[in-house]
């Protein structure tokens, strides 16, 4: 492992970091890509329903290492506890080559036009930091297109009248209808809604030299055994490595970003796979560890110039932490709805993302990814006992006769929902851990009600004999797999961390390229937006690169 100086060090090999590494390497920059997790090869993958990224009672299979990586969580009552990645309160995404894109469900949404202009449309709710993005939907469109075609997205959004303008259709068609779609699509149409096929980062035909989906029930939460599911690990990262200019180092956790005497990024200090301290110097640094870990890294990178963390002059690093509450319902049916055809989650409606009377924003509603038996147990109705013969009968009766409608509600961001670094708790390497705190803005709970009401309507129209509502009513932090917002983009350095190019306002050769950038987080899974922004940030870097530095 060479530590000689390179043009760029990219921290994190997920949706954002993988793309940046390829774009920079293909433009001729030398790149070191640091990843704290490891490779997961499809052939070694176990289909373990208790040990994966969606159900992790026996730990998350795609990282991080549970005992080595604690966090601190401050709950709504102000009580702090130490949490680990096998509990929901940890707000985990993943830690491996490819990040969350190895095991995700792979919904690949473009945000709507309105999602970039939330303040202009709705004003600023009291007690929130709702704002417009400094970049418009139209400016990001070519990068969405680039992500869709280079990585490969399948689906059919022609039936969605609410979507932002796009230059061409998706490159791959949707999978043939499963049984749930055959029931739910006409039901939505009867309600006057506009159901369409969800765009997915998953091959439905051979694409990029990889096969199409085999429709197993082991998708969301698992690596794909036949390599049909698309992530940065099986597209852009191999392409980056193939240039010969990019070196991937796994098992490497970055401790801090260091500055030179002129206040420019000099390099990163990290612990390598053998836990030895290393220094990697570079002309520029791109931070792509995810909204929680990227903010943590900046806050841990203290110096005389930045005593409270790199780029944190106005206390906006780590602020506005967002995710998505999921709301919807389960419908019980007399007829069989289960056909064992994965991945599920075929159709959605965007009728309730915007324009809901008296509400700011909303969220998409979709059929859910296919459920494994242990996952189905989560949907027990309150009047069915938790154990005993009646419970067993319920599971036996309804596992094959149930449909879930669910979707992410767009959050109203709050300054007080944030990532800090803990004054006492350290990880295995002695690095102060992320300390999470925050509660919902009250408006979020109104959106939860809206989504749940609509899901109930949809299931009822589809013929459900009974519906269980799943509505978030508790006031709590939301981050998790859709974590976003902590290094917000903006034109004003006093109310943002990076500029429109993803560049730290205060440090011109340090960039961020993950969902930390998001001003708001749409009513959608954020990964395609992360990817589009990564292409956009990379384009700015390569445009201004003059071999050895930025113009």
């Amino acid at each position, binding site marked *: 492992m060479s530590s000689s100086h390179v043009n760029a060090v990219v921290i994190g090999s997920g949706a954002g970091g993988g793309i940046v590494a390829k774009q920079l390497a293909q433009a001729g920059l030398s790149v070191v890509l640091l990843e704290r997790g490891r490779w997961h090869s499809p052939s070694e993958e176990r289909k373990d329903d208790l040990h994966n990224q969606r159900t992790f*009672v026996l730990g998350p299979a795609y990282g991080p290492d549970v005992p080595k990586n604690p966090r601190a969580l401050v709950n709504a009552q102000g009580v702090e506890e130490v949490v680990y990645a096998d509990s929901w309160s940890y707000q985990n995404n993943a830690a491996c080559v490819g990040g969350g894109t190895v095991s995700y469900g792979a919904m690949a949404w473009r945000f709507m036009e309105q999602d970039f202009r939330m303040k202009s449309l709705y004003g600023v709710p009291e007690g929130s930091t709702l704002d417009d993005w400094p970049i418009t939907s139209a400016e990001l469109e070519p990068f969405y297109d680039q992500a869709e075609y280079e990585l490969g997205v399948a689906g059919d959004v022609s039936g969605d009248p609410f979507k932002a303008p796009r230059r061409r259709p998706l490159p791959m068609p949707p999978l043939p209808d499963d049984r749930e779609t055959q029931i739910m699509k006409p039901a939505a149409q009867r309600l006057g809604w506009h159901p369409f096929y969800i765009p997915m980062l998953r091959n439905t035909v051979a694409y990029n030299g990889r096969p199409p989906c*085999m429709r197993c029930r082991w998708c969301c939460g698992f690596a794909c055994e036949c390599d049909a599911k698309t992530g940065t690990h099986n597209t852009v990262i191999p392409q980056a490595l193939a240039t010969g200019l990019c070196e991937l180092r796994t098992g490497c956790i970055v401790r801090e970003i260091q500055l030179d005497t002129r206040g420019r990024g000099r390099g990163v200090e990290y612990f390598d796979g053998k836990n030895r301290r290393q220094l990697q110097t570079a002309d520029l640094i791109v931070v792509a560890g995810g909204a929680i870990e990227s903010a943590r890294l900046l806050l841990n990178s203290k110096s005389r110039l930045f005593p409270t963390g790199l780029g944190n002059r106005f206390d906006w690093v780590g602020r506005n932490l967002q995710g998505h509450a999921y709301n919807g319902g389960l419908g019980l049916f007399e007829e069989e709805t289960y056909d064992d055809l994965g991945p599920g989650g075929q159709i959605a409606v965007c009728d309730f993302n915007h324009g809901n009377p008296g509400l700011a924003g909303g969220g998409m509603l979709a059929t859910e990814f296919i459920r494994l038996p242990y996952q189905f147990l989560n949907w027990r109705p309150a009047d069915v006992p938790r*154990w005993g013969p009646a419970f067993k009968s319920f599971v036996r009766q309804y596992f094959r006769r149930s449909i879930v409608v669910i979707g992410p509600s767009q959050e109203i961001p709050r300054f007080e929902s944030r990532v800090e670094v803990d004054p006492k708790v350290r990880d295995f390497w002695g690095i102060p851990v992320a300390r999470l705190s925050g509660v919902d803005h009250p408006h979020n709970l109104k959106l939860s009600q809206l989504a749940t009401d609509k899901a109930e309507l949809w299931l009822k129209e589809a013929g459900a004999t009974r519906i269980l509502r799943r509505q978030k009513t508790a006031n709590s932090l939301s981050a998790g797999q859709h974590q976003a917002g902590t290094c917000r983009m903006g034109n004003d350095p006093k109310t943002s961390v990076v500029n429109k190019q993803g560049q730290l306002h205060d440090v011109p050769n340090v960039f961020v390229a993950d969902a930390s950038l998001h001003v708001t987080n749409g009513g959608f899974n954020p990964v395609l937006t992360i990817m589009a922004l990564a292409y956009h940030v990379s384009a700015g870097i390569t445009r201004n690169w003059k071999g050895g530095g930025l113009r």
Partner: protein
Amino acid sequence: MKRSETHPGGIQGATKDAHPSVSGAVGKRLHSPDNAWGLNRRRFLVASVLTAISAPSLLCAGFEDLHWRFLTLDEARMLAVLCDVILPPDQDPGAAAAGVVQFIDRKLAGYHRGSQALYRRGLAALASSSQQLFQKPLVDLAAHERVALVARWEKNELPPEAWKAVGSGEFFSRFVDHVMQGYFGGPRHGGNRDAVSWRMLGLPQPPVRSRRPESPRRNQP
């Protein structure tokens, strides 16, 4: 996908156990949903009828020959009785026949080792509660007495003297979750013997589509 409410379970910090090799059940041929139990149907039917009405000696058949990693033989027998109250045998096997006790034992020595003290103290407290309420060891309770004990355990209505060092509610909640993991989770962890719960739910075997001999791997509806 993300859920909006707290998921039960989740044990802090223990390093996960090395995974055992995949159980033989995974390699069996596809069975049609009409005959979802396949070759083991008769054996399970017989065992189910017997265990539903008779003594724990049948629930725990062969327990004395097994290598228990954490549980004592007495504890294992108590757990067999208790987990069969949580998921009793009916037209499908109950939790004990599905190997849930073996699952719990394996995990207590592995990923769930943080629950060791809870089980040791909790089972002792349950043994004591059984004596106080019914003047019998737990494994000798009649069927209706077993259900009554568990119902009280769930509601924290057992005699409190036995429960000073261990939380009744916490133990119950964790135990139920472990039973569910051991019954409905994959057979590789020692429970769900022969994928009995997956057959009960009519899921095709082997569980992964690409490994069925007659299925091509690509785009198979």
